[in-house]
C-alpha cells in the first residue's frame, strides 16, 4: 500500500521547550517575555506558511535490505542491521513542511530580522520532526483494520543517523518517489525543501528496538535521542495514538 496524506499544521505545532533548546537555552532557563513574543510570532508564520504533506508505503524485508545497504557506505556495525531482520513490517516514509517556510526564513534574514528568522528555523525543525509522529499515528490507524503490524513496537529510523549512511537516501527515494509531494534529493543526499524528513518505520516486538548506544559513532552523536526513544517503548504497551 502507498498513501499520500495531508497533515494539519495544528497537529505539528511544537511546544516552546524543544524550540528554545535548539536556540541554546539550557533546560533550567525560562525564556523572557520578549523571546516568548518572538516564538509566538514565529508560530504565526508557521501556521500561515506550512503545508505539511507526507507519503508512506509498505515494502518487503528484501526491498528494505537493499535500501539499507544503499551505496555500501554504512558503518561496519550498526544497530539497524541487528534490528531490521527481526521486524515484521517495513514502511518507508517522507514528509515536508514545503518550500514557503524555508523561503520565509531566508527572507527574514535578508531583511535583518535575524531573531525571528532563527526562531522560525528552530520551530520548523521541531515541527518537521513532529510530522514523523503524525505519520506513525496515521499508519497505525490505517493498518489496524488490515492484517496489522505489531503496533507495540513501531520506531522510525532515518539515513544519516546511527551508522546508516545518508547515501541510502538515494535507494529510498528510488523506491518511495517522494517527488510527488515536492521533495527532491540533491547530489549530496540532502532533501529539498530542507525542512523535510524521510526514513523507515519498523514494526515488531518492542524489544527488537533496544540497543546499547556504545557504537563508535555514538560518541559523536549530539542528540542521544535513541535513549529516550527506547525508554518510551515499554514492553507490551502500544504507543499512544491521538484521537483527534
Amino acid at each position: 500500500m502507498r498513501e499520500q496524506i495531508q497533515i494539519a499544521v495544528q497537529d505539528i505545532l511544537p511546544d516552546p521547550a524543544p524550540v528554545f533548546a535548539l536556540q541554546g537555552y539550557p533546560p533550567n532557563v525560562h525564556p523572557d517575555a520578549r523571546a516568548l513574543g518572538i516564538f509566538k510570532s514565529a508560530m504565526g508564520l508557521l501556521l500561515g506558511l506550512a503545508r505539511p504533506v507526507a507519503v508512506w508505503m509498505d515494502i518487503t524485508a528484501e526491498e528494505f535490505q537493499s535500501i539499507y545497504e544503499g551505496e555500501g557506505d554504512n558503518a561496519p556495525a550498526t544497530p539497524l542491521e541487528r534490528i531490521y531482520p527481526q521486524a515484521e513490517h517495513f514502511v518507508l516514509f517522507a514528509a515536508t513542511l514545503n518550500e514557503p517556510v524555508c523561503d520565509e526564513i531566508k527572507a527574514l534574514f535578508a531583511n535583518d530580522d535575524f531573531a525571528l528568522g532563527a526562531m522560525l528555523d528552530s520551530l520548523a525543525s521541531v515541527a518537521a520532526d513532529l510530522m514523523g509522529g503524525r505519520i506513525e499515528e496515521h499508519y497505525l490507524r490505517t493498518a489496524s483494520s488490515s492484517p496489522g503490524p505489531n503496533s507495540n513496537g513501531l520506531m522510525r529510523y532515518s539515513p544519516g543517523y546511527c551508522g546508516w549512511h545518508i547515501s541510502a537516501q538515494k535507494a529510498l527515494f528510488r523506491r518511495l518517489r517522494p517527488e510527488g509531494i515536492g521533495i527532491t534529493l540533491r547530489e549530496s543526499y540532502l532533501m529539498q525543501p530542507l525542512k523535510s524528513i524521510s526514513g523507515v518505520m519498523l514494526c515488531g516486538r518492542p524489544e527488537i528496538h533496544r540497543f546499547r548506544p556504545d557504537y563508535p559513532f555514538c560518541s559523536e552523536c549530539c542528540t542521544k535521542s535513541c535513549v529516550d526513544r527506547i525508554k518510551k517503548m515499554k514492553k507490551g504497551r502500544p504507543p499512544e495514538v491521538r484521537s483527534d
Partner: protein
Amino acid sequence: MSLLSQISEQLQLGLEEEVAALTREAIQQNMTPKDILDNGLIAGMNIVGEKFRSHEFFLPDVLLAAKAMYAGMNEIKPLLIKDKVPSMGKVVIGTVRGDLHDIGKNLVGVMLRGAGFDVIDLGNDVPPAKFIETARNAGAKVIGMSALLTTTMPAMKEVVALLKSEGLTDQIHTIVGGAPVSQEYAREIGASAYSYDASNAVDRIRALMN
C-alpha cells in the same frame, strides 16, 4: 551618561530605532564615525558577546542587538566610506559544496558584521575554488566554512588543500564549524581554526586577523 554609552546601552537592549536616532544625534554633534562605531556600536556588541558567553543573554537577545547594530551602522556607513575608515578585516563565509544548511553560517555573518568585520557571504553550496577566488580578489584574510553533514565536510578539506597548493596559507586563514565538525577535524584537515558557535567564531577570527 555620554551619548556613546547610551548607544551601547540601547544596542544591548536590541532597540533599533533608539540606536538609529542616537547615532544620528552623535553625527549631528560632529562625533567621528569611527568613534561612534568603536565606542558606541562595537562596544555595545562586545558587551552583548560577553553576556552571551556568560548565559546572561541568549540567541534572540544577541540577534535583536545585531539588528540594532545594523540600524546604527546604516546611519554611519556613508561617513565611514567617505572617511575611508577601515573595517576590522574582510572575511569570506559560506556553506560548503553540497550543503544547503545556512542558518549557522548566517548567524556567524550577523555576529561578524556586528563586530565590525566586512563580510562577503557566498551563500550555500559553495564550490571550493569559489571561496579562494573570492578571498583572493577581495583581499580577505579569512575564509569561514560551515557544514551540517558528514558527507559535505570533505569539501572543507578541499578548500584547505587548494589554498596550500596555491601557496596562500600564509595570507588567507581558514576557520571551520558546523554540527559534525570538531577541533580534531579542523586540525586533521589543516584548518587554521575551529569554532563551536557564532560568538566563538568572532573571537577566533579576531585572533586570526592579529
